């Protein structure tokens, strides 16, 4: 590539990175403004909007609801995703590729469609407005990711360890519980964190399936973005970002640890 073309290519990549990160940076910066209006802080930084957030019962309830829903989502998607991942990694069966593809389809289904479809079903089953149905909806997006992560991890296991345990007379269940599970524990944690990130940030399904009593944080943010833009929204966004980034760093650390362990073993 000629130097000019190369420079243009680098510039393009740089612009893309700015495009990807700037909106987030701006949103978080705004949360530290001392002003009552949407004015980016230049010299003074203030935590007044975070104080306002934590003093507002409505926002705190939203945070609490978000944590409950994402906790439930983690449990549900781990149960569904891990059992399926074991089935896919251990057994050959007819149509396994088709079943696998089908299992991944919910991820590619837009939230509005899942939400509207579940709304009518939730109404029929009397689940409408509860934490459970929101968590089920979020799990539809989360469990396929759990399957993907866990499948890679399970298929990468050293088969001889399992055979050794079985050879020494351990039952299949015991082998799973005492040999396989500890080995894949980091991946389990990483999948749980992914489920958490999906659930804590999702709001369209929460909008359809929740009520004012089960309002999650993003569901409270949504109308304020539409009608009254205050820095308090920025603080709420900042808290969501903080939760997400903390969880991301945690999972990056876990994955690194695993790499270290693997490195030490070989």
């Amino acid at each position, binding site marked *: 590539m000629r130097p000019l073309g190369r420079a243009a*290519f680098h510039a*393009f*990549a740089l612009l893309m*990175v700015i495009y*990807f*990160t700037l*909106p*987030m940076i*701006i*949103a*978080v910066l705004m949360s530290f403004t001392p002003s009552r209006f*949407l004015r*980016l802080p230049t010299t003074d930084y203030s935590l007044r909007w975070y104080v306002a957030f934590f003093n507002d019962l409505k926002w705190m309830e939203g945070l609490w609801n978000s944590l409950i829903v994402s906790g439930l989502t983690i449990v*549900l998607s781990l*149960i*569904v*995703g891990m*059992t*399926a991942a*074991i*089935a896919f990694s*251990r*057994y050959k*069966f007819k149509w396994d590729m088709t079943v696998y593809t089908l*299992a991944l*389809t*919910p991820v*590619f*289904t*837009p*939230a*509005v*469609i*899942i939400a*509207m*479809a579940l*709304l*009518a*079903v939730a109404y029929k089953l009397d689940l409408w407005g509860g934490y459970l149905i929101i968590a089920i909806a979020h*799990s*539809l997006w989360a*469990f396929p990711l759990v*399957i993907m992560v866990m499948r890679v991890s399970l298929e990468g296991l050293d088969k001889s360890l399992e055979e050794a345990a079985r050879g020494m*007379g*351990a*039952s*299949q269940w*015991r082998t799973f519980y005492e040999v396989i599970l500890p080995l894949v524990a980091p991946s389990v944690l990483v999948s749980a964190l992914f489920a958490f990130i999906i659930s804590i*940030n999702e*709001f369209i399904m929460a909008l*359809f399936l929740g009520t004012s009593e089960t309002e999650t944080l*993003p569901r409270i*943010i*949504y109308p304020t*973005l539409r009608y009254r833009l205050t820095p308090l*929204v*920025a603080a709420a*966004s900042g808290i969501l*970002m903080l939760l*997400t980034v903390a969880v991301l760093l945690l999972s990056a650390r876990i994955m690194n640890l695993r790499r270290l362990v693997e490195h030490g073993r070989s």
Partner: protein
Amino acid sequence: MATAAATALQEEDGYRAGWFERLAPYYKYLLLAPMGLMLIGFFAWPLLWLFRVSLYESRGSSGFGIGGAKGQEGGGFYVEGTWTLDNYIRIFSDEYFQDIMIFTVEFAILVTIVTMLLAYPMAYYIYKAGPRLKVILLILVILPKLSNMLVLVYGLQILLANNGLVNELLLLLGIVDEPVKLVYNLVSMTVSKVLLIIPYTILVITATLHGLDPTLRDAAQGMGASPAETFFSVTFPLSLPGTFVALLITIVWALGAFVSPALLGNPDLQTLAVEVPKQTFENVNWAVGSAIAFIMLAMMSLVVLIYNWILSSRMPWRA
């Protein structure tokens, strides 16, 4: 020692291991059961039920469904036990809905074109980058998808405002004389929707490029092809199948646009997805809401079918 331990283990497990092992032939089905329940009970059935609900007679906007407790006379969000195509007839004949349908498709095409034009070069850049830069870029690319879309929209609202950074930059560079309106129009909608989709597109194309056999590229270069020639005659054609998967995902997501038109659009630029909650909650008309959601689903299925059809027919790059 080892044998003794093994015997002890066996004895400890005793009978319990027995019945558990006897289920062995059914393990795979037992293991798939939770997923089956989830997929059928909370995905397939709801989607079918969505179609059923769309065939109910709607109560019209007067049937205030707030007291929609089940079985309660006068409540409810649709008329139980009815079958009608009225909702679809109404949607397809009403100019209001026609405009929305056309705009949804137009917007999806626009977003798809912009996304693909930006995603392919970016994916190629990541593919070409050194190992350390590659990891950083991949993290930056996935970041918008992992953060809250409302946070992104909020950031864009501020950035694109009349006194926002983008306008200040344009004024500073002398490109414009007075602030341009960038927010609450097609510009802000496209910018936000592309940002919400593009991580997936880039990841799929990057994965495709990494999956290519590098020896082909080396062979082309070894035979004296310039980097550009190598790209256009080897890398690009070989990456087309994966790029088409990325295209498919992009179109499907673009057709489902909700946040961008709802928060960064204006009343003239609305999509079907925005209409779903509007009909369902504001007009308390679940039947029409379901019908619109089902039309969206049908549009997306059509895209997938066309994709499969193209894939199964002989295409030049598959020969």
